[in-house]
């Protein structure tokens, strides 16, 4: 085993010499800069696209917020949509019609109103 171990170590060091350091050819640096520029332009385009997308999303958010917060003008003119749900319910069921059905409102409730 030790014999193989030593032989392997010798082989590995010989391998080091069989593949010496060597320098690049003349095309290496121009090619590298071409690749860097190509990647840079892709990154630049992606950045621009992201900026446009973020700006568009922000504008859409503002628009949606405006639609949700501000009540539409047509809704304020519609009597059915004015007031709370309880008021609308009370308007559509006058006391007289409730009495006809046998439902009598509490006196204190009427006084309170």
């Amino acid at each position, binding site marked *: 085993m030790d014999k*193989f171990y030593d032989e392997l170590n010798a*082989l*590995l060091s010989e391998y080091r010499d069989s*593949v010496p350091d*060597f320098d690049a050819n003349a095309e*290496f640096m121009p090619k590298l800069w071409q690749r860097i520029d190509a990647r840079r332009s892709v990154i630049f385009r992606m950045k621009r696209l992201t900026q446009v997308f973020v700006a568009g999303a922000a504008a859409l958010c503002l628009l949606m917020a405006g639609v949700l917060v501000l009540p539409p003008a047509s809704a304020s003119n519609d009597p059915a949509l004015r007031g709370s749900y309880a008021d609308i319910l009370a308007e559509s069921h006058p006391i007289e019609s409730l009495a006809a059905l046998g439902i009598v409102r509490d006196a204190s409730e009427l006084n309170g109103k």
Partner: protein
Amino acid sequence: MLVDFEQIQKAQAGDDAAFNRVVVAYRKRIFGTIARLIGRPEDVEDVAQEVFLRLYFSLDQLRTPEVFEPWLYRLTVNASYDYLRRQRRRSESRMADLSEQQVMMADAVAGGKQSHEEQRRKQVKEFVESLLDTVSEEDRILLTLKEVEGLSLKELEKIYSVNENALKVRLFRARQRVLKAFEASQRKPAKAEAGG
């Protein structure tokens, strides 16, 4: 360090001329390391370009210029590892393209043109690469960095970001695997001789 810290800092700040100087200073060493890690001289330039490309776009992540060299080695190891993995996937189909006889003839023709010393080097190179091919890409790279490139455990620690003991265990296992392949290759001819 083959360049001043100042050059690295300038390159980090986006100075292309400084980056150029860093590449020129390190490319020879990186070429040699890649050649020994991947064992295919024709693909060394491509892998080296990938290393320096990754270096350019990740240079701003380097916190201190002192760790530049281990960091560059890590990029080299990662790019070589990616290459070896791709290569392993393709190797089966490539081998199927050539018959054994064609491979032997090509070797003989190439061998005839070389001097004895060159042939010996070629044989060593091919034999060691065939041994390294029997282990995983991780083992191959780790063993090459330690035994062929001659990096110390401290340097390997910085490259792999693991502690010395874990590294020793990994190295021991990798060496055992290669040793096993080496032993097997040495016993085969003996058996063949005994049988013949």
